[in-house]
């Protein structure tokens, strides 16, 4: 590679990172700016963060989101892991259909899932709210858990299960003592991913939750539509920090498998 090409490459990499990060970093910086309307720097303050904490509806929505995300991630992780195990380990009628179904769901547009679930819930006469949102988020996250766990199971030695059964373990105990501990990092990463998916989802939640149950992304959505506000800057900073923590956690979990 010529020197010029290499310089070009380095420049490109840094430009892309700048493109990805500058807006977020600017928001974080402004979240400490003691000015309401201007982009001028008016001094350091934490008041937008305390305003955030005092924003009742926002805190409620955040708590709602946390509870839905935790539950949805947990259920999706259980179901998604089971699906991965079935696809990887068992031969049954419809296995390939299931496999295909999972992959299609990971790429199918969220808005389609949102409206199809809306129609479904209305047709069933279900009140939109916590339960419909929970079911929707589980469905949204499940395929991603399956795909994550499947990737891990791909390098799993089938003989280990046979060894366990040979040593007297039932199907369930082989799963419990051998498969699960070995798939654990991917299962945990799947949980984290599900959690983020649920915390961030706008497109599905928009259709399937009712007025009685507001979640954080929708609350943020209605705030953001009104334009730039210092307290949203603070909120963005908080959420971004949280994301970094989750990503690092997920990375450590998936990294261990390579060793």
């Amino acid at each position, binding site marked *: 590679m010529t020197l010029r090409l290499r310089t070009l490459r380095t420049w490109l990499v840094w430009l892309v990172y700048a493109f*990805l990060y500058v807006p977020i970093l600017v*928001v974080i910086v402004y979240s400490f700016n003691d000015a309401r309307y201007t982009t001028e720097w008016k001094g350091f303050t934490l008041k937008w963060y305390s305003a955030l904490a005092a924003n009742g509806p926002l805190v409620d929505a955040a708590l709602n989101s946390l509870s839905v995300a935790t539950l949805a991630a947990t259920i999706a992780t259980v179901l998604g892991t089971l699906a991965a195990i079935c696809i990887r380990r068992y031969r049954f009628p419809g296995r390939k259909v299931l496999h295909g179904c999972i992959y299609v769901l990971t790429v199918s547009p969220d808005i389609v899932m949102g409206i199809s679930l809306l*129609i479904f819930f209305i047709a069933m006469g279900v009140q939109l709210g916590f339960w419909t949102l929970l079911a929707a988020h589980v469905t949204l996250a499940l395929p991603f858990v399956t795909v994550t766990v499947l990737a891990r199971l791909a390098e799993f030695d089938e003989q280990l299960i046979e060894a366990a059964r040979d040593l007297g373990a039932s199907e369930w105990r082989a799963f419990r003592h051998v498969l699960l501990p070995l798939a654990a990092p991917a299962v945990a990463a799947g949980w984290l991913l599900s959690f983020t998916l649920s915390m961030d989802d706008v497109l599905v939640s928009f259709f399937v939750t009712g007025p009685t149950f507001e979640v954080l992304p929708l609350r943020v959505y209605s705030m953001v539509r009104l334009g730039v506000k210092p307290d949203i800057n603070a909120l963005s900073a908080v959420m971004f920090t949280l994301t970094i923590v989750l990503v690092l956690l997920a990375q450590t979990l998936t990294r261990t498998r390579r060793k």
Partner: protein
Amino acid sequence: MTRRRPFRTASIAVVWLWLGLFALLPNLGLLLVTFLERGESDFVSLVFTWDNYARLADPVFVRILGESLWLAAASTLVCLLIGYPFAYAVATARRGLRPWLLLLVVIPFWTNSLIRTYALIIILKSQGIASNVLMALGLVSEPVSFMYGEFAVFTGLTYTLLPFMILPLYASIEKLDKRLLDAAKDLGASSLRAFWHVTLPLTLPGIVAGCMLVFLPSLGCFYIPEILGGAKSMLIGNFIKNQFLVARDWPLGAAASTIMTALLVLMIIGYWLSSRRVALRERKGADTGAATAGRTPDGGHDMTHGADGARRARGRA
């Protein structure tokens, strides 16, 4: 065959039950609704009609569809043009450096896209960073706003969805056996021709996966046009949303959504064809493995073959 395996049976049943109830059934319902008439008291009335599809030929919708496809295609192309060399650079960086470089892509990928869209406002708005930079450089004499319009929506889509392009590309480029390029050059191919004849065909599944993960969400995510585009911008996602929540015309909204589903199917077929080609190339001369083939149930044509990133990719856009 007749052996009872409670764990296995229960697992398969519960997974199928969930997906059947909350994925298959709703989608069938959605399809059904596209053939029903709009209801007076209820949302739909049970009368069969093709009319909803005919109504999609309405010039207003055709204009929205055209605008959506154009914006989505443009952002996909720009993401690909930025993403491919970037992913290539990261994938060929020093081995110890790669995880860190990749981590810097994964973080925005996991970050709430609302937040990221919001962050763009500060850059693009009048007297925003972009305007100030241009003024400082002397390119413009007075504050400019990039907000509210096609350009802002386009920037927003590119900005939010770029990581979704990079990750599958990275996965397929990283998997590529670099010795193949050496071999091509050894056989007399120039760098460009080696890229064209070796790298590009072998990373095609990653390209298709990346395009799929950018193109489809950019059609659907209605909040980017709403936040950045203002009242003027209306894309297919906004149209669907409006039919469901404002106009209360479910059948029309549902019919519009089938266009997205049709595009999805097309892209999946494209992905399948490209990954099958790569798989076939790779399998040539490989061992037949007949002995083990019967024992491990492994589908072969997994959709995300060659696109590890796509597996975790997509997300909330």
